């Protein structure tokens, strides 16, 4: 398959269609608009359904309906829109319905701005909606990964009967990079539970209400057990030059791109720096941090937020190493020189936390 130069958002949409996505319910919001626009243009021609809903609230409930029929379905939005979808996402997780939800993050809070940000980390991984539920959250760091992770998201959603979120940001969504689409068939699974019309079988019910505490508790434990299995099987991250590193950077998505360049700059100056890049934000890759935290190493978290990923890094490091922090906000993006000077300050200037 030849490489194609494409915007991140469009790569997501194309990958979704190739993954068998046959329904897209969306709503306009910058900076994710290329996704619904692409779907409106291409999905109907390729056997799918596109509909712009009257609101994100409505869109996520359309997703609930279609997912309940066993169809591969997707929606996308940006930060404020994801807040509106939070209730629906909780329902979808509770009903164990497979679907893909894309959040192309923009800066907040409130209306905020339309530039990139990573301020929805907590919302994505700690549950933006009510109740104990988890989304599998995948964080692409390139246009190639926007395509690959979206394609895999559909298989993961079906495999686990769970919503999967692709958590990108406006920069990844708007920039163009060459991309090559995965050339394999999606792994479709039978869905006997779907509401397709009770022909020759007992009626199926898609429902999240359970007014009896004893049985709702069982349901919650079953979800918890599923989430534990997901953590065992689907946690993924990337390591870059950490074997001999004195300082390990933790960063995902756009922040990781800048951090990687800063690692190379530091290495050129003889400073032993590495990078751990979480790709699944939930389940969070605690293991590499725990292993690296041998008491001699320091950590530096780079984020486009006030510090959210850093909490999970601290939990994993568990006190066995200083965890430094550098961030940009409001749509500003951290640059390699900024990160490099922080590295220098830590390793040579003896900057404490």
């Amino acid at each position, binding site marked *: 398959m030849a490489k194609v130069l494409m915007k991140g958002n469009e790569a997501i949409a194309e990958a979704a269609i190739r993954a068998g996505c*046959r*329904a897209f*319910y969306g709503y306009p919001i910058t900076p994710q608009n290329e996704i619904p626009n692409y779907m409106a243009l291409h999905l109907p021609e390729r056997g799918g*359904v596109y*509909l712009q*809903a*009257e*609101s994100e*609230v*409505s*869109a996520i*409930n*359309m*997703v*609930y*309906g*279609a*997912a*309940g*029929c066993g*169809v591969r*379905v997707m929606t996308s939005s940006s930060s404020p829109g994801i807040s509106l979808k939070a*209730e*629906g996402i909780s*329902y979808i997780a509770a009903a164990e319905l497979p679907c893909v939800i894309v959040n192309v993050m923009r800066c907040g809070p409130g209306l905020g701005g339309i530039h990139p940000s990573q301020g929805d980390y907590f919302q994505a991984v700690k549950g933006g909606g009510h109740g104990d539920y988890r989304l599998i959250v995948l964080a692409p760091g390139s246009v190639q990964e926007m395509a690959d992770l979206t394609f895999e998201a559909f298989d993961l959603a079906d495999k686990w009967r769970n919503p999967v979120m692709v958590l990108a940001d406006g920069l990844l969504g708007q920039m163009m990079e060459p991309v090559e689409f995965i050339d394999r068939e999606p792994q479709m699974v039978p869905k006997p539970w779907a*509401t*397709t*019309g*009770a*022909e*020759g079988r007992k*009626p*199926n*019910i*898609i*429902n*999240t*209400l359970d007014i009896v505490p004893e049985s709702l508790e069982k349901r919650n434990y079953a979800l918890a057990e599923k989430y534990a299995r997901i953590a065992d099987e689907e946690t993924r991250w990337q390591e870059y030059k950490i074997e001999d590193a004195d300082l390990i950077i933790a960063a995902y998505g756009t922040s990781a791109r800048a951090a990687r360049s800063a690692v190379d700059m530091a290495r050129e100056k003889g400073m032993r720096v590495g990078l751990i890049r979480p790709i699944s934000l939930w389940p969070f890759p605690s293991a590499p941090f725990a292993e690296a935290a041998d008491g001699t190493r320091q950590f530096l978290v780079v984020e486009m937020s006030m510090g959210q990923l850093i909490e999970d890094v601290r939990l994993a490091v568990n006190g066995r190493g200083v965890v430094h922090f550098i961030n940009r906000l409001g749509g500003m993006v951290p640059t390699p020189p900024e990160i490099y000077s922080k590295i220098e300050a830590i390793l040579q200037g003896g900057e404490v936390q």
Partner: protein
Amino acid sequence: MMRVFERPESLTEKQMHYCPGCTHGIIHRLTAEAIDQLGIREKTIGVASVGCSVFAYDYFNCDMQQAAHGRAPAVATGIKRVLPDRVVFTYQGDGDLASIGTAEIVHAAARGENITVIFVNNAIYGMTSGQMAPTTLLGQKTTTTPRGRTVHDNGYPIRMSELLATLDGAAYIERVSTHDPKHVMQAGKAIKKAFTMQLEGRGFALVEVLSTCSVNWGLSPQEALEWMRDNMVPYYPLGVFKDVTREEEQA
């Protein structure tokens, strides 16, 4: 002896939880009878809303989905778009449809979504202990209008059928009542017609069914029927507000 009335196949055996005399039960039966008569039980998918009728998924003997409060028309749209040859209906109360779900119902109608909506209007929030709904009548006492609803504080009750009938996407809108056997039978015909409209692919069909809430109205079941006839019917006139098939005949 020949059987002339029995439980429709599209109702499950489960005993309904509704309060004694609550006409939700009648409306469930009318809906199930329509599904039986049209022979579509095995290709029907119902969407239950949130309110007293949230448990409808236990009472209708067909595939069901339970939707978040106010969102049933969106869930139904999501289903109908991917399964256009299936029959999709929503069963919603007035709090669900006329309050939190106003946008969803208006846009489903504006899109001419080919679904059937059973809209139960009992002028109150039943399940949550009798609060004012957008359809609560002026002067009507509820747990959140203890001195009676006033225009000053709470504005005017909304006539949803008339409102939705202004939308070109609406193919069939009728308001019916359940205050006596004649009107219950008329309601049954309207509900059957609303399903037929969907089968013929004509677009959005909604039947608003006036219904009682004796417990929260503080009346006996029979008194509630009479209160509905004497107070709700005058404010919510019965009749057909949109019917594209009739317009065709006239054309």
